């Protein structure tokens, strides 16, 4: 119901996500505030465009003069960030519209989310201004993060400037911040992130349609609490999922069906079941929390677009063996046993005793040379059934070796060699290699291990090798790939 403007006004998303001249309306020179906070964030992250600051009281902030009104900005602006009191928002928005802004994000709260008549009316006024030709993100939101342009959410001065294929739409600002930071930690790169809060104007359906066509976006992720128009959302989701993977984290689900119904069908049709069904029907991927969403996005962003049903699992640690097979099954993955001749050839190059090469392949100890592991992976890939290989690398064990050698663990653990070799294996075999880096050593006495694992993750990722913390997380993420690409033709 709120998507009307698209039919009358062509939305200039380019100027919204990649603005060259922006206004921050509502900067306080004293103490912390949303306006000055976003100004510092944009400065720190390195936004390259021109920033104009506005506050009726004037003054300067970090040497930048503060203009008394939006009208005083010389020339036109592309985008505005509005952080004034709710009551002053409609007028500020109108002034930005007259300055030619294609869009504005409104951080201010005090609108519909209050549930008061005043809040509802103010939001209505925002919508009315928007209809005249300025697209609104918010109110009550954290706005846009776009690594390519340097637009960032609040508080986002330390987010990555590296662009990638993953877009995120979120009704929750906190979720956007968390996901952006998680992404930076695990090497997930974003094209665009929009926290749209109340979604008075732009919200899930229109943004989904935009991202469906957006060449910078290869994977769409969403955090959704409620949708304004279920039918339009369903259609937009279906259209999007036909073009690129769509991953959905739905908040606030209930098992209870509608009250006061007579049929069993209606009493069993609670939001949890219906949402799951709708997402399946449009071939979207449903996840249950932020970590699962991050991991699924990572898998979709880095692995080739096809299902991987039969895999090999190699390496060491408690997750190998029976646990691996059990963990794989629920995700539609099998770990087929290698034929005896292949087992023999693999075992011939692995240390004895301790190794077993049936698939899963236990390589005997964490210190097997990277060149040997490369040969093992090349051999395992000879089994024509295998479509993808997972290697569980127990790098944290290098801590004690490093201690004996009197060297920092990050200089001893051979992750650079492993990354180069695994990349070569994946390239030569055409079968992706996925790395799992479990780290049970995370305490204060092991911060050097934590650092080494982070470096290892970055190195593997830089070599195109996707990394997960735990085997079951890798299996679950690949399982999502299998469901999505397995049903792509539906």
């Amino acid at each position, binding site marked *: 119901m709120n998507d009307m403007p698209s039919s009358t006004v062509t939305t200039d998303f380019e100027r919204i996500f990649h603005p060259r001249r922006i206004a921050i309306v509502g900067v306080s020179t004293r103490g912390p505030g949303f306006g000055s906070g976003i100004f510092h964030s944009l400065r720190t992250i390195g936004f390259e465009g021109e920033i104009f600051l506005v506050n009726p009281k004037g003054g300067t902030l970090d040497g930048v003069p503060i203009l008394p009104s939006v009208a005083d900005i010389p020339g036109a602006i592309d985008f505005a960030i509005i952080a004034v009191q709710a009551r002053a928002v409609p007028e500020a928005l109108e002034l930005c519209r007259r300055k030619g802004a294609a869009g504005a994000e409104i951080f201010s709260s005090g609108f519909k989310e209050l549930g008061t008549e005043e809040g509802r009316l103010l939001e209505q006024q925002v919508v009315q201004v928007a209809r005249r030709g300025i697209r609104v993100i918010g109110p009550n939101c954290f706005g846009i993060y776009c690594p390519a342009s340097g637009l960032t959410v609040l508080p986002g001065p330390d987010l990555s400037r590296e662009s990638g294929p993953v877009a995120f739409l979120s009704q929750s600002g906190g979720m956007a911040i968390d996901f952006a930071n998680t992404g930076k930690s695990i090497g997930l790169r974003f094209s665009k992130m929009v926290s749209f809060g109340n979604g008075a104007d732009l919200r899930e359906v229109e943004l989904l349609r935009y991202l469906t066509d957006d060449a910078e976006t290869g994977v769409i992720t969403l955090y959704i609490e409620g949708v304004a128009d279920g039918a339009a959302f369903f259609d937009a989701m279906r259209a999007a999922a036909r073009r690129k993977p769509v991953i959905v984290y739905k908040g606030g689900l209930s098992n209870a069906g509608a009250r006061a119904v007579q049929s069993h*069908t*209606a009493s069993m049709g609670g*939001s949890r079941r*219906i949402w799951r069904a709708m997402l399946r*029907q449009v071939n979207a991927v449903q996840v249950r929390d932020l970590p699962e969403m991050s991991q699924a996005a990572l898998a979709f962003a880095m692995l080739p677009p096809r299902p991987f049903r039969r895999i090999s699992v190699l390496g060491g640690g408690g997750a190998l063996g029976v646990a691996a097979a059990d963990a794989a099954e629920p995700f539609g993955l099998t770990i087929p046993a290698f034929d005896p001749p292949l087992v023999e050839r693999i075992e011939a190059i692995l240390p004895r005793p301790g190794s077993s090469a049936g698939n899963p392949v236990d390589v005997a100890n964490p210190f097997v040379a990277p060149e040997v592991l490369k040969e093992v992976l090349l051999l395992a890939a000879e089994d024509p059934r295998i479509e993808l290989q997972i290697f569980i690398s127990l790098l944290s064990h290098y801590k004690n070796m490093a201690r004996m050698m009197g060297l920092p663990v990050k200089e001893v653990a051979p992750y650079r060699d492993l990354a180069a070799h695994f990349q070569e294996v994946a390239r030569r075999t055409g079968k992706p290699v996925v790395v799992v880096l479990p780290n049970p050593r995370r305490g204060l006495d092991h911060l050097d291990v934590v650092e080494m694992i982070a470096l290892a993750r970055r190195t593997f990722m830089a070599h195109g090798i996707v990394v997960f913390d735990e085997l079951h997380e890798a299996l679950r993420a690949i399982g999502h790939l299998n469901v999505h690409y397995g049903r792509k033709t539906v």
Partner: protein
Amino acid sequence: MNQAMAQQIIQEALAQGRKALSEHEAKQVLTAFDIPVTREVLVTDRTALADAAASIGFPVVMKGCAADIVHKTERHLVRLDVRDAAEALRMYDEIVGAMQGVDGGVLVQEMVRGRRELVIGLTRDPQFGPCVMFGLGGIFTEILKDIAFRRAPLSQGDAMEMMAEIKGAGILEAVRGMPAADKEALSRILMAVGNIALAFPAVAEIDLNPVILAGERPVAVDALMVVRHDGDDR
């Protein structure tokens, strides 16, 4: 029976301020959408019973039938496996007595034999509108809640997927000497239930429970159709 007549049945029920169609009315609406239902005759006159039962053929099932009666089993208004005319008369009197003057009749229907019971239904979700349900039927529906939903309209692919999605999907395969279910026929029913919702906004909820597999062939044995006035499509 065609869709115009189905429309008329629904309109009359609404005009009378009713919240549901009787089983017999509901099955006429189903028939208009080519959903297979039990052969049945509604008897409102004791003297017509013998002919009705003969036309269906013994053994028959007899049910108290009125729009105000939604849960027939709980009110002891269902008699299975009625073997002959004399038993039919006795059951008729018992059922009419148990109905305690409620306006209606006694439904005489074929006794569908089959050990596999399914449920097919419709609900209207506040956000997504009409959604069709498929699952294990009979008493297992509420206990196991082994069900799948899809939003209407359904493609045949949607219908096939929801049948495969339930944990008990194996019940549709050839099992214990029973033939595999006719999944094409089941998918046509699932799509048709969605089409009823799209054609008639006044149909708020549907339960076809059980849909019995008579051999490979699905038949809607019982039907509940809840109607409401506002015609709101949500």
